[in-house]
């Protein structure tokens, strides 16, 4: 498994294609440079367990070996791994708050976003959650700017930094 167990420090950086979960109220999970990638934060308010995923591509179905080695790389395998890891710390599906950010259309040098990875990531996430009967509680999706996303494990507060402004999601 590719995700990294949270250590003793307060700020836990979640890298690209990684996920982290925590049950320690002092922990702040942070992920940077969400462009077309998706950041998915889950939090169970009863047991105060939280997790953050930074996934890159919609589906691991055509990359089985990579998806099993690094599930957080893909939306479909990454979100499943995120929920499973949160369950191991006592979270329950029916209490889970899901907040998502990213999925931008990042256009470089005036070129069209022909692969539309951000949009495809968003659709893959919505489809997975719909099939599993889970709502998105809050979202900050699309646009053209990269985002930084953080989750305060003690309070469940998710903050987004994007294009010079910062706000609570």
């Amino acid at each position: 498994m590719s995700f990294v167990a949270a250590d003793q420090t307060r700020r836990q950086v979640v890298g690209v294609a990684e996920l982290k979960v925590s049950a320690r109220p002092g922990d702040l999970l942070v992920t940077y440079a969400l462009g077309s990638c998706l950041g998915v934060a889950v939090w169970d308010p009863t047991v105060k367990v939280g997790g953050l995923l930074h996934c890159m591509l919609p589906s691991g179905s055509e990359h089985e070996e990579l998806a099993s080695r690094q599930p957080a790389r893909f939306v479909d395998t990454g979100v499943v791994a995120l929920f499973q890891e949160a369950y191991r710390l006592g979270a329950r599906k029916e209490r889970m708050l899901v907040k998502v950010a990213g999925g931008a259309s990042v256009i470089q040098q005036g070129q069209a976003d022909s692969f539309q990875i951000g949009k495809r990531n968003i659709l893959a996430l919505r489809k997975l959650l719909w099939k599993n009967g889970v709502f998105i509680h809050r979202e900050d999706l699309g646009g053209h700017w990269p985002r930084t996303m953080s989750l305060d494990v003690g309070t469940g507060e998710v903050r987004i930094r994007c294009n010079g402004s910062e706000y609570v999601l």
Partner: protein
Amino acid sequence: MALNVLVVDDSSVMRAMLIRTLRMTGLPLGEIHQAAHGAEALQILDRHWVDLALVDINMPVMNGEEFIDRVRDTPELRDLAIIVVSTESSQTRISKIQRRGARFVHKPFTPEMLRDQVMAMTGVSYAQPSGSGTGLGGHRDL
């Protein structure tokens, strides 16, 4: 107390989507009735107590606009909570629907858009998240 719901749409797939979204909200649901048009819905209302109706506009036999008029003109039914879920885009028609005390969700919608209107109409705050796993069955990824 459980909410009895009536879902009125001539598309069976759309009725299934609406019922799935209602189950996801975690609201305590009682009986769930389905009708393919307004006339069938009125027959159901004649025989069953319903707390909330989700209603399409363009349907055969009796459309949603006429159904709402009939409900509002019937003393025993006039307070029924109604959410119109429709592809209707005419401001004229939407305003009329809203003046008759119905909320409006435009198709296409996300599950969250419908959830927000259902929660607003039923007065239930969304302090607790989805009632996911409440009898939806089938898919077991999460």
